[in-house]
């Protein structure tokens, strides 16, 4: 994986001739030295623009240049109108293949086109080489065959991973998101740590994805695998619940319920005691198989009884009617009670659901508050550090009156606290759901019983008043029992069949669980950890050399989650030391480059920094930094930086430094004689 910049050519066409500059870079540290406002940033932005990467500076569709490239350019003391302008860049990759790219800035030509020649046409304009046009900065430029970033990625040797956005679509990790780790431009690149990784593309955790990609960490693949396994888990859970619902619905047919069946996939199958289908008998629940036996026995008794005549049975029937009427009153009373209990359980379920919704909302808000705190740490807020922004006294992390004499929980504790509440209520809901189902079954069973007695009483009355023959009543009883037996046999068969299904699901569940267990805990492979440790070591070492003062460098580490520097598990925060922020950026981006020297990564071996001497960074520290950067040359890496140091101090800075200096006294852009 390598990208190196060999030559940059900027051409501005005016009525009075062509103006511009041509810079030749070498495969080591290159320093562009010129006073301020003389066009250094045009050169760096020219490289960014030629590579179609201006999206990393801003989402704006305008080229990242001032009026010199688009409107009027001052040459000497004469203002010339710009007719058209363009940027050409000669680049090479790991295999030494050279290509030249050209993109128009001003003029009639389409700015969304980049012309690519497969050869060095800046050095040798007459080489007979083929040219092809690619489109850039429009949808699909990273994925489509004819897209420039598609071409550039394969030129560098990159295979861009697909990453999820906040809209839950998968998009390629755009080049605009990767290059801010190798190119620090002047306008905003130094304003914050990794502040130039664009967020407007709406890629989730984009900075993490970019570092992961650049260091070629396995973590991302692992996290995708984990995600897939989670989805499979959810699928199995869904199937389990559907099967359970099907079984429970079937059981209703014979007024039965399923007991002992776990509501969620169980890894231990079959559970002990085993799941059972139970049916009501009087006031107790008995197993459906038992119920089936006793019903069969009852049927046999009925079949053996010979139908009798009416004659002397009147008294007997009257007694039976009285008993049945008493039984009906008792059963109706029980039914009423059952209904009350059912309603109470349903009410309880409603309460639990309402409480759960409130807990969910609170949990979401606390999590949001936690995420928002992290934004505060990019731009330091006093509230995040528990300090009043006005009087700098300690404040508590709450909007309740500060005088209330109780400390609020820390956000993490609070989230944990709510999560445990949620777990309790989820368990309560599970339990209440089971109770509701049981009460419903009980109510329906009782209802069926009451119906039965009523029908029996009606039949007895009709028999007594002579409307029906007694034999009819017995036949009806037999039919009812026969129907129940038929249903029960069917349901039991279905139940056994479904038990097998649960067995299969349980097996799949176990496979998924063990696959999840096999993944490294924080998704980082052994290689990943070695790379991060190397980056961490380089970062600490550099910070010591550059005299970083905000924190002891040894107390800093690289987060295994976000890959950002952190201090005692908290994201690195710069407190009032802008120059230490600059040192941190130096050490981090160069640390990535140094890590790429001893590990296989996707780093292009290129680092471009526009004016690294920002803020009040000391000249001595810049000197140390430059010396360390010269190491790049020994490893075939390339660094391009710009500086506006005063001439005399610049001489001291680069004395004995193995670097190529592109020195300008005045404007970098001047009349171009050739080409």
């Amino acid at each position: 994986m390598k990208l190196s910049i060999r030559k940059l050519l900027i051409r501005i066409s005016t009525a009075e001739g062509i103006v511009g500059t041509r810079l030749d870079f070498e495969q080591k540290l290159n320093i562009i030295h010129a006073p301020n406002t003389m066009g250094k940033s045009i050169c760096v932005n020219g490289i960014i623009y030629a590579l179609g990467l201006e999206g990393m500076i801003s989402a704006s569709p305008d080229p990242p240049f001032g009026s010199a490239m688009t409107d009027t350019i001052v040459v000497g003391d004469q203002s010339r109108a710009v007719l058209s302008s363009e940027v050409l860049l000669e680049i090479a990759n790991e295999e030494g293949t050279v290509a030249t790219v050209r993109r128009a800035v001003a003029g009639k030509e389409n700015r969304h086109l980049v012309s690519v020649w497969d050869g060095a046409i800046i050095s040798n304009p007459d080489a007979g080489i083929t040219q092809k046009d690619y489109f850039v900065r429009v949808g699909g430029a990273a994925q489509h065959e004819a897209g420039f970033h598609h071409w550039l990625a394969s030129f560098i040797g990159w295979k861009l991973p697909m990453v999820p956005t906040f809209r839950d679509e998968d998009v390629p990790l755009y080049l605009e998101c990767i290059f801010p780790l190798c190119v620090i431009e002047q306008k905003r690149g130094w304003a914050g740590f990794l502040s130039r990784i664009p967020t407007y593309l709406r890629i989730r955790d984009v900075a993490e994805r970019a570092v992961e990609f650049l260091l070629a960490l396995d973590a991302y693949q692992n996290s995708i695998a984990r995600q897939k396994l989670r989805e499979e888990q959810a699928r199995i859970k869904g199937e389990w619940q559907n099967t359970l619902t099907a079984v429970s619905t079937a059981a209703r047919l014979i007024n039965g319920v399923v007991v002992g069946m776990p509501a969620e996939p169980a890894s231990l199958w079959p559970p002990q005691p085993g799941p059972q289908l139970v049916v009501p008998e009087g006031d107790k629940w008995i197993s459906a198989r038992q119920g089936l036996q006793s019903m069969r026995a009852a049927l046999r008794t009925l079949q053996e009884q010979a139908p009798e005549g009416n004659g002397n049975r009147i008294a007997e029937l009257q007694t039976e009617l009285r008993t049945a009427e008493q039984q009906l009153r008792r059963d109706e009373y029980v039914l009423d009670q059952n209904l009350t209990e059912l309603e109470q359980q349903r009410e309880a379920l409603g309460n639990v659901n309402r409480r759960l919704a409130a807990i969910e909302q609170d949990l979401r808000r606390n999590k949001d508050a936690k995420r928002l705190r992290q934004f505060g740490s990019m731009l330091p807020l006093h509230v995040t550090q528990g300090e009043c922004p006005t009087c700098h006294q300690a404040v508590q992390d709450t909007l309740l009156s500060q005088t209330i004499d109780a400390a609020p929980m820390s956000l993490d504790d609070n989230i944990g606290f709510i999560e445990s509440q949620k777990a309790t209520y989820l368990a309560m809901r599970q339990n209440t759901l089971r109770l509701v189902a049981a009460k419903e079954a009980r109510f329906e069973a009782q209802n069926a019983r009451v119906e039965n007695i009523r029908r029996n009483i009606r039949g007895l009355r009709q028999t007594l008043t002579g409307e029906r023959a007694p034999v009819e009543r017995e036949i009806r009883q037999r039919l009812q029992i026969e129907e129940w037996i038929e249903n029960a046999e069917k349901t039991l068969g279905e139940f056994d069949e479904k038990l097998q299904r649960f067995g299969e699901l349980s097996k799949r569940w176990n496979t998924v669980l063990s696959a999840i267990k096999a993944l490294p805990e924080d998704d980082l492979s052994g290689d990943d950890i070695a790379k991060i440790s190397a980056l961490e070591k380089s970062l600490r070492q550099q910070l010591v050399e550059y005299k970083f003062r905000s924190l002891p460098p040894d107390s800093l580490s690289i987060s295994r989650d976000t890959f950002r520097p952190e201090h005692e598990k908290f994201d690195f925060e710069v407190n009032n030391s802008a120059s230490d922020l600059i040192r941190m950026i130096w050490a981090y981006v160069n640390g990535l480059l140094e890590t790429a020297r001893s590990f296989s990564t996707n780093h292009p071996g290129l680092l471009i920094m526009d004016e690294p001497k920002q803020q009040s960074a000391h000249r001595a520290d810049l000197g140390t930094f430059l010396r360390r950067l010269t190491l790049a040359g020994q490893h075939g890496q390339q660094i391009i930086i710009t500086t506006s140091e005063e001439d005399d101090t610049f001489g001291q800075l680069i004395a004995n430094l193995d670097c190529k200096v592109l020195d300008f006294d005045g404007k970098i852009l001047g009349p171009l004689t050739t080409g």
Partner: protein
Amino acid sequence: MPEDVFRIPELAVPITFQRRPISIPGDLRPHWQIGVVLLILWNSRKAKASLQKVHIMNWAVRDAERRAALSGYIDGEVGPEDVVVRYEPGLDRALRFAVAEGLVAVVKTNELQLTPKGSEIVQQIEAADCLQPEKHFLKEMGSRASEKRMKALLRLESLI
């Protein structure tokens, strides 16, 4: 026999009480509330809003029923008497923090506006996966919740 209680050895120890940190509802966390304030201003015209409007939006954004009520009022489907706005004292504290942090500036006596620093943070909030229902609602309300309509609501004027 109360003394008998102390024959149980486990209970015959001095009882001490320890003050534990208390759980705070998420919407009373300064960061949550400041985030919502920034989003309200961000979705207002010129990133500017009166204190009253911030209070109304802050009241409405908090749950689905209120969101529906305010939306219904603006569409002229619900009368102002059905939109009972409650002032949240925590909001005033959050505003004071936000102003002191330089995220929000007071322009005129009664008007709040995002500062450049505030809009930088709010753009990060927009891009990140947080405050989803809040963002969705505020974006949808956008310019529909104009100052004029908010004043009308407070004067109990109907928009029908």
